[in-house]
């Protein structure tokens, strides 16, 4: 069966039942990078455009959430006598999780939501799944600046470990991108995915050591290392609050799962790029 070939130089497009091969797919994707940029910028602009506080909300909401957790859990959980700063730990965890939660949820419905754009004009559908991860990046960066500003206020030290923040951000971005690619493609075929993602995020937040340190769960604690979000969030927390436990295993799990998800996500969108439209 003929396969799909794109030759932009000579403006020839051949579409057959077989999808574009991997290398040309990447090249086409790269050719559309500017479109990805403009879509992400517009997404960011339109989201906060009509609110008078605008972008402030993107940072304020997780800040409030973090403050509530600090106040309540430091009493309920008796996390006051830890070897690291609990407030900084929660703040770093909630702010980075908030980026994942918001972007992951938006990404899972992105291809379906973007149908008015996609059923007429061609561009790789995977762009849509990546837009939320990119457009929320600005909010995440702002959060991280505020986190650093807040560290002395909550009594934590600003240390050299902050160099791990950019690393953590890159890992989080890639993980969110992989998550978005997989869930958005699934959502086209199974509209339950939207709700499954919502439910999963709810549970996921609590099985990730965000508002409590993993060792607080005693014997269950080590199993949290197999949660791919644990390593990423821990890296943020390590940068902000200092060492609190072993990092290597959870981070390796995170990297491994990220790679697997990106591979699956790219394969699925590549194979279904020109079939999604039939289901929209």
């Amino acid at each position, binding site marked *: 069966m003929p396969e799909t070939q794109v030759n932009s*130089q000579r403006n020839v497009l051949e*579409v057959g039942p077989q999808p574009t091969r991997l290398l040309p797919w990447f090249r086409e994707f790269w050719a559309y990078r500017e479109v990805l940029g403009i879509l992400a910028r517009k997404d960011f602009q339109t989201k906060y455009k009509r609110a008078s506080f605008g972008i402030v909300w993107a940072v304020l909401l997780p800040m409030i959430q973090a403050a509530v957790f600090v106040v309540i859990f430091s009493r309920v959980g008796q996390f006051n006598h830890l070897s690291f700063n609990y407030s900084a730990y929660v703040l770093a965890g909630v702010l980075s999780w908030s980026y994942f939660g918001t972007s992951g949820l938006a990404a899972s419905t992105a291809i379906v939501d973007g149908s008015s754009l996609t059923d007429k*004009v061609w561009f790789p559908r995977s762009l849509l799944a990546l837009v939320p991860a990119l457009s929320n990046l600005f909010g995440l960066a702002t959060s991280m600046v505020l986190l650093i500003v807040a560290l002395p206020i909550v009594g934590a030290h600003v240390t050299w470990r902050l160099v791990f923040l950019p690393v953590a951000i890159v890992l989080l971005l890639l993980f969110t991108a992989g998550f978005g690619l997989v869930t958005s493609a699934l959502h086209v075929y199974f509209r339950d995915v939207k709700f499954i993602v919502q439910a999963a995020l709810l549970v996921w937040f609590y099985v990730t050591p965000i508002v409590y340190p993993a060792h607080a769960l005693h014997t269950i604690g080590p199993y949290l290392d197999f949660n791919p979000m644990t390593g990423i969030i821990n890296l943020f927390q390590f940068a902000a609050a200092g060492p609190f436990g072993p990092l290597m295993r959870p981070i390796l799990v995170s990297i491994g799962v990220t790679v697997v998800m990106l591979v699956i996500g790219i394969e699925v969108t590549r194979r279904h790029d020109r079939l999604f439209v039939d289901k929209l």
Partner: protein
Amino acid sequence: MIASSWTSSDADAPALMTDTSKAIEIINVSKSYVKLNEQAMLLKSIMPFNRAEKEELKALQDISFSVEHGETLGILGRNGAGKSTLMRMLAGVSAPSEGLVRIVGRVAPLLSVGVGFHKEMSGRENVHVNGMLLGLTKKEINQRFDEIVAFSEVGEFIDTPVKFYSSGMYMRLGFAVAVHVEPQILLLDEVLAVGDVAFQLKCFDRMRELQHRGTTIVMVSHSMHAIRLMCPRVLLFRKGKLEFDGDAEEAISTHHQLLTLDAAEDHFGQARMPISVLSRRLQRDGVETAAASHDETLEAIWSIRFEEPISSPQAAFRILAEDGTLAYSIHTTIGDAWRDFDAGHETEVRVRFQPRFGGGGTFRLMLDITDITGVHVLGTDPEGPRVYVGPRPGTGGLGDALATIDIDDVHMTNHRSLAMDGRAADANGSGEARRPGS
């Protein structure tokens, strides 16, 4: 931006053998959709042994045709004939299930209402995003921006989010972008139906201009007028198959024949109606005919049978122009109780009329028989006889306003003979003597 970022390299090698002599080539293309009987559900579909529920819907079956560079192609067909599926493939957003679609040149698709606009964004932003998606660089968009806004006539609303636009404004802006990206291939799907007459004329002008500049145009339209004006060649689709490929007039006439046929099929597939139409004929001076001059008196006669007892039936008579436009209608005294009919009674409905349509054309005569309220149709003639009406020389249009024109008090009206020259024309619709606008 998209084209420029590509480099000629090894991966393009297979494409060297590609035949680019045609703008569009469709080779043995089929498209089938897998339809789950119920809404696709995650849990259900991952269950093994659950494949039986799938049902295949064939939207296109083994279609082959090609379009030359610079050619304008019209596409006709009823809803569900596969036109939209085909247009999606030409836009490159959908892949065929079998076969190959080859498109040579930059495509600007303008399919159905909406052109890939983001509702939350302003018109200005959408022009930029859309232009970029259609393959323009930022610089090229900026160069054309004012021209696009001027063409679209959205004026000061250009900075308003498009979700507040009227459908006309939305469409106009979309059309403006599409025609200003200077595509090599322009795809239009029923877009000229929106907008006022002035804008439609502007669109036609712009499309003519693109035609002269060698743009390949593929347009789907339900407006026979638009198809005639723009397309020398027309493809006719029916139930996923390519039924006809050729001359526009012939395609239109075949389309109408199929419409009638399908309508009859649909009709007889349904439950029997309380009143059956047994036969119909059209007469002039007691002789059956299929053509007439605009000032002659015709008589259409329908034989009907009451399948159930009916009280005080009423009738509505309509004359439809070729593109389905209502040219004339009249009905009986709705609301008047006048007589009861027994089941099995057979009788005739006779309509006498003069086809006073100055510009002439082929018309369909339709009859509906309703209950006393005029609302519920008890019987209908899905086929309706056709009549070819010759034009009154010098006039055009559906109606005949019997106008006279004086210039400098000189009577200048065209009073050439009113004799018919097209009487012998084929009454099936293919023999129409004049083209609108010519």
